[in-house]
């Protein structure tokens, strides 16, 4: 298992062209922890998908995941789905100036990552959807996404022990303690389900984590995701899902600290003013770490508006709308 040098893959800007709703969008001034807001259907989740396709070492897995999370797997092969859902007929998708996805290459996809051209054969690597899970091509660590549905239980089961070996259990436990400080230990247990389920110990009694509420699942996902994505990229769709507003500042603080410790670059989306206020507060405590963007349609063109920490703080104090 190779851990990359610090910040080797951290990006300061990201450009996406001809991908889904994006004709040509650039985000400049990315930080270690980035929050992205915007109206419904403006492309927040699509941006996370582009970031995943650009950042994932397991490119085939990233394509599968993007299709699966959109439940767009109606076509018989991944190749057909890619053509239907990810590519325009006549346009080449470009992520950060690279040339990752195009029709013109026939059955091949190209991606430039870290200065190296990677070629993927739709025929060899992306077989039928049902076959993909047998390919075992996922890697650890790697860029990771937590979609609205939460942490993938298969991935959680598969990589839990890897994270324990890395010594990350306390980091994950600290996230859970933001809601339930009495939690002593955490583990996965087989209980007849397809995948092992998370349990915790409180006052020496065992509880299934899901019994403690949806917020615990979210916190487990964020803690697990940061650990899994060490040295890489973590994408979180609708950050605040399941989390009460009163703990959002503490969750952000933990994300800022853990992301720095594990060299993870975080991209999260939100609709929530509470989430934004908490982010603003924590970003002001960590200079040059957080960056806030709003995606918006202006005069028929999609653009990303970045707010500096001081501007975001002013806006939240004065009740100006920035989402």
């Amino acid at each position: 298992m190779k851990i990359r040098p610090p910040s080797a893959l951290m990006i300061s800007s990201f450009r996406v062209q001809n991908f889904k709703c994006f004709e040509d969008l650039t985000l400049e001034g990315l930080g270690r922890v980035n929050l992205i807001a915007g109206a419904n259907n403006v492309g927040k989740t699509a941006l996370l998908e582009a970031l995943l396709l650009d950042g994932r070492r397991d490119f085939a897995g990233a394509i599968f995941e993007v299709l699966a999370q959109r439940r767009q797997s109606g076509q018989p092969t991944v190749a057909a789905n890619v053509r239907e859902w990810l590519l325009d007929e006549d346009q080449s998708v470009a992520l950060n100036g690279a040339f990752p996805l195009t029709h013109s290459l026939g059955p091949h996809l190209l991606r430039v990552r870290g200065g190296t051209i990677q070629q993927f054969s739709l025929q060899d690597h992306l077989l039928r959807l049902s076959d993909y899970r047998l390919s075992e091509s996922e890697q650890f660590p790697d860029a990771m996404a937590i979609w609205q549905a939460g942490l993938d239980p298969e991935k959680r089961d598969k990589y839990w022990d890897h994270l324990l070996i890395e010594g990350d259990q306390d980091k994950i436990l600290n996230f859970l303690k933001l809601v339930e400080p009495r939690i002593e230990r955490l583990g996965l247990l087989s209980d007849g389900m397809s995948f092992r389920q998370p349990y915790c110990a409180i006052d020496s009694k065992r509880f299934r984590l899901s019994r403690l509420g949806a917020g615990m699942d979210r916190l487990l996902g964020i803690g697990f995701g940061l650990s899994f994505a060490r040295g890489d990229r973590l994408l979180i769709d609708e950050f605040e899902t399941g989390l009460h507003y009163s703990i959002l500042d503490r969750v952000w603080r933990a994300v800022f600290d853990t992301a720095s410790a594990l060299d993870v670059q975080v991209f999260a989306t939100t609709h929530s003013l509470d989430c934004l206020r908490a982010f603003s507060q924590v970003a002001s405590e960590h200079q040059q770490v957080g960056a806030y963007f709003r995606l918006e349609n202006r005069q028929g063109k999609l653009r990303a508006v970045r707010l500096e920490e001081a501007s975001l703080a002013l806006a939240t104090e004065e009740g100006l709308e920035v989402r």
Partner: protein
Amino acid sequence: MSDVIVFVEGKDDEVVLSVLVERRLPEFRPRLEFKAPTKPGAEGSGAERTLSSFELALDQAEPRAHAVAIVLDANQRPASTWERVKARLERGGIKDLPEHFPAEGFFTVNAIGKAVGCWLMPDSTNAGSLEGLLWQAVDSPAQQSLQRQAITYVENVEPKYYRSQTEPTNAVQKANLAAWLAVQERPGTLSGHALRSGVISPNAECFTPFLNWLHRLCDQSDNPTEN
């Protein structure tokens, strides 16, 4: 959700201008919001905080507003006040600004299609404040008599703290108005209430240039150029 946002210096301005619009431009009231700083002392004067919010709303904030504007007291030197506004407009990407403040108020449309405006109280020409404009809007003989007595009181009061203020014209206008409002039938009436009750006449002609400027701003929001 308001689609016209006008940034003002204080809560009193917010109330007074809201009442004025209720009476004179009621068709625009549901879409128009006057917004005063919630932390006026956090960045120097209330005007600085107001200017910062206005600058932010030009492009970065208030994405669903079709028009944003600022109403400031012109103060002792209206040209200096306009220079401060100009600096914010330029930082917000608006170029080719007039050297002298237009008597009909400033109005433009920025690169993202938002209408942008500025008005300097009392009348976009003279030194002074919103209180100076309200003072002109008293038309009953009895009230005008009270006004003269208020002026006499302020002129004769000792010590004359208001003279040492950095904005003496504003200070005198505020002192006169406060002294006059203090001796109303309801002593200590606030200026917004005086306007609502008609002691200050919302139909006074002196408000018309300001309302014309505001009307133009709201008209633009009827015909947005974005989305």
